[in-house]
């Protein structure tokens, strides 16, 4: 099996890389074996070995050396463990991998809340808490950055634009197979005792932390590589592979959101890769980027890190906006309100996202003159964000709303993100931020944005596209139960966090003063309820995939292209390339038709779009 080949290739790569580094170290007179320098140097070779072993050699690189091109021989479930280039296989690989990471990170959150139920260090000690907290944050950020784009950007976007695959299918497989090494690095890090820097890995602490910290750097670096490649592929696909008649003005809003996200990944991710590289060099090569005693500058890390990581917030949230607007139109049976303004707003968010990063640094000691411009630019972002909300509300207005499970999640995104967004306006305000920096108010704010917005959007997408991806329906009763349980659990967990944050509860700490105990108890109870309600989802997901009712082609009566082909779609997606006649939101408009599928009559096509 391909994965075995990958593991062997990775091991050989590590040994070769390590031997090379050790030879160089011996040559310059250093001790040959030193776990950090050797591993950092060997990592790239090991990852390359893994990629070649898992299938890049067999299906891609070997023809460069004159060997014959090979076609795929794998079928059935084994495809998901192979270097398969079908975008639909890769979408499912991404989805399942990141769901696994999501539930691991969720489990870590349960341990954190267990510790924080009472004052004192009674479940884990402070070091263990820091390791769990850091890994929880890192994994959740990775999930939020890559899950929706990886799963639905890959599975749905090519179909929505009428293409048979992505522009670069092999590159697509490569971007997915870079993800397992990320998971491996994080797991190895935990085995080494983890790291205590949180997901942000600020220097100089990250330079001084134990060997686990190095694996955090390597993991983030590798995930960055995967996002850049994935983003590039999506941009080229959307620009060059659209079906006849699929003009920019007819593009489904979800495709727009993924396209804009991909542009941000392509441009900004290099900066986090650079930040990680600098820390690795400070750790292993004796460099002094962040060492003030030798002329370095710790704030440089924060500037570079946030120059990526603020746009990354929009990499996490824009796909959820896309999913939300998409579903609100289909389930309100109305055209998307202010479509062009919504697209403009997404572009505006992308533009502004590059000039706000220092709002994370108001208390860092950076030049005071930088505060006001960053306050202003940050608050400006609420304008395009408001436009997205107007588009959603205008679409809902007087709609014939169908409260399906995905629609509930879309409405949940609106509710939660409203709270997350408005508290963000408070935090952008310098005097307020100085008071609230590093308190649970901030923790509550970004969980409302990322979990309440981004991850709710991801789960809405899962309920929405599950029938298309698996050919089975998910149980909608259990889906509704899951929605209401996590909606309740989420708000009971995170609303009180604003309060304890205002009372002075600091983030990233295993202990607190006794007066904060009642609030923390409530948060923990909410968190346990929230965590366990995902069991309903896991059961529903697995059971429905194995034994669910067979899904029709278009269970939601939606008009975008993916619903006009069988569930699951055939390998080449479309029997004949579709011709796009209008935008996909023509609900309630007489005689409107999104696409001519080239099969049967146009009248039949109109009927099927109207289901």
């Amino acid at each position, binding site marked *: 099996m391909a994965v075995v080949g990958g593991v062997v290739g990775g091991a050989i790569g590590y040994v070769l890389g390590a031997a090379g580094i050790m030879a160089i170290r011996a040559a310059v007179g250093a001790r040959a074996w030193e776990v950090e320098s050797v591993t950092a140097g060997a990592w790239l070779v090991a990852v390359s070995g893994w990629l070649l072993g898992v299938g890049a050699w067999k299906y891609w690189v070997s023809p460069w050396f004159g060997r014959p091109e090979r076609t795929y021989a794998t079928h059935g479930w084994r495809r998901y463990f192979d270097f398969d280039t079908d975008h639909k296989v890769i979408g499912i690989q991404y989805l399942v991998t990141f769901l696994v990471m999501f539930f691991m990170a969720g489990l870590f959150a349960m341990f954190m809340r267990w510790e924080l139920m009472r004052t004192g260090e009674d479940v884990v000690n402070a070091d263990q808490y820091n390791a769990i907290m850091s890994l929880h944050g890192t994994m959740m950020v990775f999930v939020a950055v890559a899950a929706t784009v990886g799963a639905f950007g890959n599975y749905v976007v090519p179909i929505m634009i009428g293409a048979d695959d992505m522009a670069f299918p092999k590159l697509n497989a490569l971007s997915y197979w870079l993800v397992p090494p990320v998971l491996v690095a994080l797991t190895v890090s935990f085995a080494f005792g983890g790291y205590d820097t949180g997901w942000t890995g600020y220097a100089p602490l990250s330079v001084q932390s134990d060997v686990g910290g190095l694996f955090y750097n390597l993991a983030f670096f590798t995930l960055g590589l995967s996002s850049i490649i994935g983003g590039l592929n999506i941009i080229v696909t959307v*620009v*060059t592979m659209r079906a*006849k008649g699929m003009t920019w003005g007819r593009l489904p809003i979800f495709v727009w959101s993924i396209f804009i996200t991909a542009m941000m990944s392509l441009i*900004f991710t290099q900066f986090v890769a650079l930040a990680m590289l600098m820390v690795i060099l400070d750790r292993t090569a*004796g*460099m002094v980027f962040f060492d003030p005693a030798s002329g370095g500058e710790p704030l440089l890390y924060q500037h570079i890190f946030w120059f990526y990581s603020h746009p990354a917030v929009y990499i996490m949230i824009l796909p959820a906006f896309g999913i939300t607007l998409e579903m609100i139109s289909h389930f309100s049976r109305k055209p998307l309100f202010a479509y062009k303004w919504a697209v403009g707003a997404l572009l505006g968010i992308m533009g502004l996202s590059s000039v706000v990063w220092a709002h994370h640094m108001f208390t860092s000691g950076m030049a005071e003159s930088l505060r006001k411009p960053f306050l202003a630019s940050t608050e400006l972002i609420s304008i395009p964000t408001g436009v997205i909300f107007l588009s959603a509300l205008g679409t809902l207005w007087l709609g014939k709303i169908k409260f399906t499970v995905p629609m509930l999640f879309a409405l949940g995104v609106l509710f939660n993100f409203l709270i997350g967004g408005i508290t963000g306006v408070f935090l952008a305000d310098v005097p307020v931020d100085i008071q609230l920096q590093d308190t649970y108010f901030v923790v509550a704010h970004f969980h409302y944005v990322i979990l309440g917005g981004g991850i709710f959007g991801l789960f809405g997408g899962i309920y929405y596209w599950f029938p298309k991806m698996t050919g089975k329906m998910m149980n909608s009763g259990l889906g509704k139960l899951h929605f209401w349980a996590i909606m309740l659990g989420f708000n009971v967990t995170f609303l009180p966090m604003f309060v304890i944050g205002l009372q002075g509860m600091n983030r990233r700490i295993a202990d607190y003063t006794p007066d904060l105990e009642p609030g923390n108890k409530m948060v923990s109870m909410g968190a346990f309820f929230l965590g366990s309600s995902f069991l309903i989802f896991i059961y529903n997901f697995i059971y429905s995939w194995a034994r669910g009712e067979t899904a029709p082609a278009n269970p939601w009566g939606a008009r975008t292209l993916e619903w006009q082909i069988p569930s699951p779609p055939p390998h080449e997606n479309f029997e004949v390339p579709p011709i796009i006649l209008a935008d996909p939101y023509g609900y309630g408009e007489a005689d409107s038709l999104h696409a*001519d599928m080239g099969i049967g*009559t146009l009248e039949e*096509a109109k009927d099927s779009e109207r289901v």
Partner: protein
Amino acid sequence: MVASTVLPAEHETPRITINRFGLWLFFLSESMLFAGLLVARFGLLGTEVNEEVSQSIGLLVTVILLASSYSALRAEQAAKARDRAGLVRWLTLTLVMGAIFLAGVAYEWVEAFDAFPTSTTFGTLFFTMTGVHAFHVITGLVFLLILLFNAKAGRYDEDSWPVEAGVKYWHFVDVVWVFFYPALYLI
């Protein structure tokens, strides 16, 4: 009404356009990495340059690298003209010049370890910037080697896209050096 429009067999954008667009996006993304390094360089040290950098080696490797861009261009032209012998000749010349560039940087590194080690700010920036650039030069050389190997076997007689991609990448690496050289040696 029966939908019986004649349909194109595949999407209309030619493969070569798709490939070129992807390559340019890759350059755009990589430029951000190099821009970040330049920002770090001027952010940490302003325009200060360590006087012990070897101006003669710096100038020499720069000239050689720029010359190699010209021979790479000739290799691409040869590939497009289906001139296999010319392709092999120009690729070989490019490879040799690229290797000389690397050797020059390696020589400079040995000197620099004593003059401004990694534990100084300038050393940190110098080794990181030349190192990241050299990593790209090495990958470029690997691509050129594969191209040479395949060119000899006549594999680009039909489709010269791989040559074009390798050569464009080589130009890109050179352009980066056009920014790095003054930033590290001159300003």
